[in-house]
């Protein structure tokens, strides 16, 4: 095997071990107490998994995108909150390593990220833009040699637990809402004032209340390319594919419990319990979801690993990645609901080996993270020009 393949295999094995040995055992407590999955993130940090995607030339492991999706799946299967925190962190790492390396500031930052396994959160949503990633109200404002911004973020996942923060803002006070840049703030460079709470239906361990973010930094903290490029080439496809693998992990975990329930019901070999037929229906849904994600992952990994990006700027690609997000976020809770129907009361109760309530509640978040309604509206416009030929 090549060195890269060795590193990728070691990464996959390590993350799976952390998922099974650390994250899974804490998942119920993380959910019940709505607390950050500290032990899982700490284990990932010790295993240097937070910098896994950083190129070898910059001290990271240089693992591929497909391996990141596998890690999100394994973690999501054990603890959806831990999986989602890991996924969101890797989205931020992807944005920085794919768009900012080569400037002295970001080269130094990435070296520090590798050395100290810094956890990065993001403040992309904003009060007053209706959930549109590509519109900002807050603006970067020159102040002497520095720049400042103030942003009202309605949901900043693990904001209180992250070391650093990436924030979208308009390029300048007179820039259009869509003329955005992405700004890194490290540690105390940004002040976060909590403005709301996070007592949520699911994904309770992501700890995602609102914050008012204020910062004053040097201009070199601004990623050197327009946010529109970062969004199209990295943030949107990374988000949809890594999130979807967390949801697939949740769905697989619910399936695991339904299968275990059916197996426990099975009598003498040669007969199957009535619920086994429903398990087969469930397996069909899960396999379709796996196949859909595998295809979309291979397409994106192929584009970025060939060094190209032009194919991501097509109407066809925008429709495909949007459709994938909608499909995966709707399918995961459907699979959890079907698993609940198989497990019955044992699934509905929170304290049996067949409980799937947490999985269903966690999976329901998918349709709201960049609301599917909004994505359908975007696709509706794109489909007017796209012929599907």
């Amino acid at each position: 095997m090549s060195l890269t393949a060795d590193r990728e295999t070691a990464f996959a094995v390590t993350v799976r071990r952390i998922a099974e040995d650390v994250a899974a055992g804490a998942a119920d407590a993380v959910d019940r107490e709505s607390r950050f999955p500290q032990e899982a993130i700490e284990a990932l940090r010790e295993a240097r998994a937070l910098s896994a995607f950083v190129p070898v030339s910059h001290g990271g492991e240089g693992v591929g995108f497909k391996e990141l999706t596998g890690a999100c799946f394994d973690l999501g299967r054990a603890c959806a909150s831990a999986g989602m925190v890991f996924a969101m962190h890797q989205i931020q790492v992807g944005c920085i390593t794919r768009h900012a390396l080569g400037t002295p500031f970001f080269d130094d930052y990435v070296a520090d990220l590798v050395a100290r396994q810094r956890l990065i959160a993001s403040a992309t949503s904003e009060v007053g833009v209706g959930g549109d990633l590509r519109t900002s109200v807050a603006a970067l404002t020159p102040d002497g040699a520095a720049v400042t911004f103030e942003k009202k973020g309605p949901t900043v996942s693990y904001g209180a637990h992250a070391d650093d923060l990436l924030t979208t803002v308009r390029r300048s006070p007179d820039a259009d809402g869509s003329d955005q840049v992405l700004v890194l703030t490290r540690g105390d460079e940004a002040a976060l004032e909590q403005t709301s709470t996070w007592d949520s239906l699911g994904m309770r361990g992501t700890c995602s209340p609102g914050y008012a973010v204020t910062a004053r930094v040097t201009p070199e903290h601004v990623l050197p390319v327009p946010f529109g490029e970062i969004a199209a080439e990295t943030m949107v496809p990374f988000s949809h594919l890594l999130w979807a693998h967390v949801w697939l992990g949740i769905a697989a975990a619910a399936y695991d419990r339904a299968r275990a329930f059916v197996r426990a019901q099975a009598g003498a070999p040669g007969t199957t319990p009535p619920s086994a037929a429903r398990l087969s229906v469930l397996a069909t849904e899960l396999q379709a979801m796996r196949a859909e994600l595998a295809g979309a992952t291979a397409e994106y990994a192929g584009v970025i690993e060939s060094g190209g990006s032009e194919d991501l700027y097509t109407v066809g690609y925008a429709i495909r990645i949007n459709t994938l997000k909608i499909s995966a976020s709707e399918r995961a809770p459907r699979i959890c609901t079907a698993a609940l129907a198989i497990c019955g009361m044992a699934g509905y109760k929170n304290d049996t080996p067949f409980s799937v309530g947490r999985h269903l509640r966690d999976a329901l978040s998918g349709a709201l993270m960049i609301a599917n309604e909004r994505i359908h509206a975007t696709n509706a416009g794109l489909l007017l020009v796209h012929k599907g030929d």
Partner: protein
Amino acid sequence: VIDDRIRSVIGDYAKLSGDLGALADDDDLYAAGMTSHASVNLMLALENEFDVEFPDRMLRRSVFESVASIRAALLELTAEAAA
């Protein structure tokens, strides 16, 4: 003449932040403020104006990024139609 019609459609739909008259043929419309949402409206408006349909292979940023690239695409489509 084709350039005037292209520029007229751009003026109506690309929602540029600057002055259309100052725009050179090779200037990047996205850099001039056209959002991806506006670019889709531009595609539809060009299809209406020139009575063409852009095939999917042309529905990419590089085809709609400037007056010159739009003209090249339209000329290719009308040449195909005439052939």
